[in-house]
């Protein structure tokens, strides 16, 4: 279970202007739930993900993952709980190291790394089966350097890496946005399989309304650092992408109107 309470973060821009990015987010995700997050550019959806991952420390509030308070933990320390796939296919893997080495590093996520040659024959056999399961014909390329793979292939490997050691929380940050449509579909399918198979608690940011509705069990809309809507169950099941977009636009205008008419502080 993921418990986020009154999470706040304000960034100071180079000019000194203070931009509130998260304004008291409250969010509870039960174990095994797959939540999709939508919002406009600068709405705070990626900031929310990064705050949970620990890229920066929040100004206020608490984050608990599986009962552990990680609010003040540096990124590398909470990594044992979190699997991550970034939007940029270059960001999740080491380009000059082999596919096998990347998988081995991911298998040890959050664990002590000793002076053992971990990439043994048995490990390679294990990875061979796992990579085969991706259905991208990458199983023969475990010794190839990561840099020789295409964006889609890299994201597939990154996804495998994020879940190789079962995470308490899987964070997906628009992980198909940089891919061509065919590769994006492939990755979405793999995501769905992996999450279902392992019953992973997942938080996925997306800019696609279709993806937001088709994937997962619950959709939240983020705007101006706040959760505008939280859709699940029958309410969500009855919506299509257009409904969602309309709903989102309406809510946004209501907020903008309220902000515009707010008495000066």
């Amino acid at each position, binding site marked *: 279970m993921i418990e986020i309470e009154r999470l706040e973060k304000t960034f100071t821009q180079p000019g000194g202007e203070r931009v509130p990015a998260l304004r008291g987010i409250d969010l509870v995700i039960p174990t095994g739930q797959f939540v999709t997050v939508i919002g406009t550019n600068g709405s705070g959806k990626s900031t929310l993900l990064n705050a949970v991952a620990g890229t920066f420390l929040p100004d206020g509030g608490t984050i608990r993952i599986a009962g552990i308070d990680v609010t003040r933990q540096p*990124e*590398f320390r909470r990594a044992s709980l979190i699997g991550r796939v*970034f939007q940029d296919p270059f960001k999740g893997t080491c380009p000059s*190291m082999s596919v096998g080495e990347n998988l*081995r590093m991911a298998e*040890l996520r959050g664990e002590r*790394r000793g*002076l053992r040659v*971990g*990439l043994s024959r048995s490990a390679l056999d294990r990875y061979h089966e796992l990579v085969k399961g991706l259905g991208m014909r990458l199983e023969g390329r475990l010794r190839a350097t990561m840099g020789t793979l295409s964006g889609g292939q890299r994201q597939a490997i990154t996804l495998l890496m994020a879940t190789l050691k079962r995470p308490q929380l899987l964070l997906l940050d628009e992980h198909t946005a940089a891919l061509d449509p065919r590769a994006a579909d492939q990755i979405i399918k793999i995501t769905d399989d992996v999450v279902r198979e392992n019953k992973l608690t997942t938080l996925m940011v997306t800019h696609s309304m279709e993806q937001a509705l088709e994937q997962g069990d619950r959709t939240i809309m983020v705007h101006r650092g706040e959760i505008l809507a939280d859709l699940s169950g029958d309410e969500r099941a009855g919506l299509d992408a257009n409904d969602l977009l309309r709903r989102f636009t309406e809510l946004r205008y209501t907020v903008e109107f309220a902000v515009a008419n707010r008495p000066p502080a």
Partner: protein
Amino acid sequence: MTLACGKSDARKIVIGYAQVSSVATLDEARAGFFKALADSGFVPDKTITVIERNAQGDIPALGLIMSDFQQQGVTHVATVSSVATQAALKSITDRPIIFGAVANPYVIGAGTSPANHRPNITGAEIPLPVDSAVVLAHETFPDVKEWGTLFDPADPFAEFYLEKAKAGAAAAGVRLITVACTGPGDIAAGIQALKAQGARGVVQIPSVMIGGAFSAVVKSTRQANMPLVGTTTSFQGAPIALGLSFYANGYDMGLIMIRVLRGADPATIPFQSEKKRSLVVDLASARAYGVTIPPAILARADSVIGGNPEAKTSTAGPQAITQQPARRGNNPFEFWLVAITQGLAFAALAWGVYLSSRVLRFADITPDGSFTLGAAVAAAMIVSGKDPLLATGVAVLAGMVAGYVTGLLHTRLGVKDLLAGILVMTALYSVNLHVMGKSNISLLDVRTLVADVHAIIPASQGWSDDLSLGVLFFFITVVLGLILAWFLRTDFGMAMRAVGDNPAMITAQGVDQRRMIELGLAIANGLVAFSGALMAQQQGFADVAMGVGTLVAGMAAVIMGETLLFNKRGLGYTIIMVAAGAILFRGMVALALRMGLNPIDLKLATAAFVLAALALPKLRVTRSAFRTAK
């Protein structure tokens, strides 16, 4: 406080004593100076106050020392060495300056003749008989018709002594070949260049820098089978030396100081010149060179050291006059063996630089300091009688600490990588001086790793030092390379590689990249210090300035290694090729010297080699692209 003391008692004597560095000649003059004072009842800390400063080779620091003397209310200034005297001349005008160990006070502007000089300065000069030394060299080794000498272009007396040497060569009817040398690390190269230009023996003219690293001159000339003639008697290792006593010179300087302390006006005291020559024959050195000193010369010697009964009987024999056949040096393999041995010693350096620059992608300048640190720690421990293996091990640990500190500055204090390295490298200069206690430690004729080779391989007793070291360095390099290849493949090593490759990714995998950078730099600089420790034992000395250009040499080796890869990949290949790059680099430097390159142009050649290695793959691509286009 000191200032107040000085002023409260106007008659109190405070002598400011300054010396440029701890070289044997200058230390002898210093001993003579203080002996003269003590003999007349002027005892430091009892009847007089002495503020003693040694610039440890840092010439600009002498100016600061002089203004500090004025601040502290020094009443009399004593300077040993020309540079210290020059610094005093420039800033002290209102109190007496007494100098010693100055070859020629007129060259530095102290006066125009012994009696006609600046009013506040006088002292004892020591014009070394370089011309007579060249004549002596010819008398001792009549078969040698071409003599060479190294000179330091930065030395104020280089020209003065070169002229004297030329005069001596003309008188003896021999040729004199000269090669410039700007740092102690270039001495071996300089001797090779002399040999390449035809010199068959060396008469080394006096120089503070070259004298400080005299053991390197001894080692290189021994290797090149060129007899060495010294022009001062303070340095050990030459079979024969003709010089003046720096101790006597310092004693004279002390006597002059006493006259001034008792009220004489320096303006009325003429400069004194040291005249008593001393001819020293070192039979032990002669044996090491495989040469014999003719009986006529032995008879003239003021002192004969290192003798044993066997040597004495042989000098009486008829064969004594002829030079013994060369034991080594004429062997062309010996030259390349040295180049390869040095290349093998450089392999660890190249791997260290590879680790920081390529694996961690950290621009680390610490090697310029940690290389010297490794040499300094190893040399200091070895001369104090410690086991060379232990000394080398401690040197590695010291280098690791240095690298770790650079890492800490970067990761915990947010100092940029380049700046963090510069700070540690600068600080290490002082640390290295403290470790060595002086600017140069000779490792000649002390127990180094060579002894360990003899202990492990009994058959190596008959080998030359360089062959023994070459074999040892080869095994060390192979073992170290295997360890490195294994380490970078371990789970820990993979995480370290990932830190350089993609820090965001490895952080997401739960690795604290700050710790990885700290440990990685520690290992890298441990390797560099190891290389420095090996190098010191190979070249026979450690010098505080030997680290200059270390990083460039390391980068050169890495770049050449990468060029040698010819697009092949893989960790094992890369590790082998980086070591091969180090050997190739030393080999190219050796080749350049063999072809008679002036050591002054060595750095220029180094830059050209690196550029060639960088440009080669590009040229290949351009040519093939051109072919395709056609």
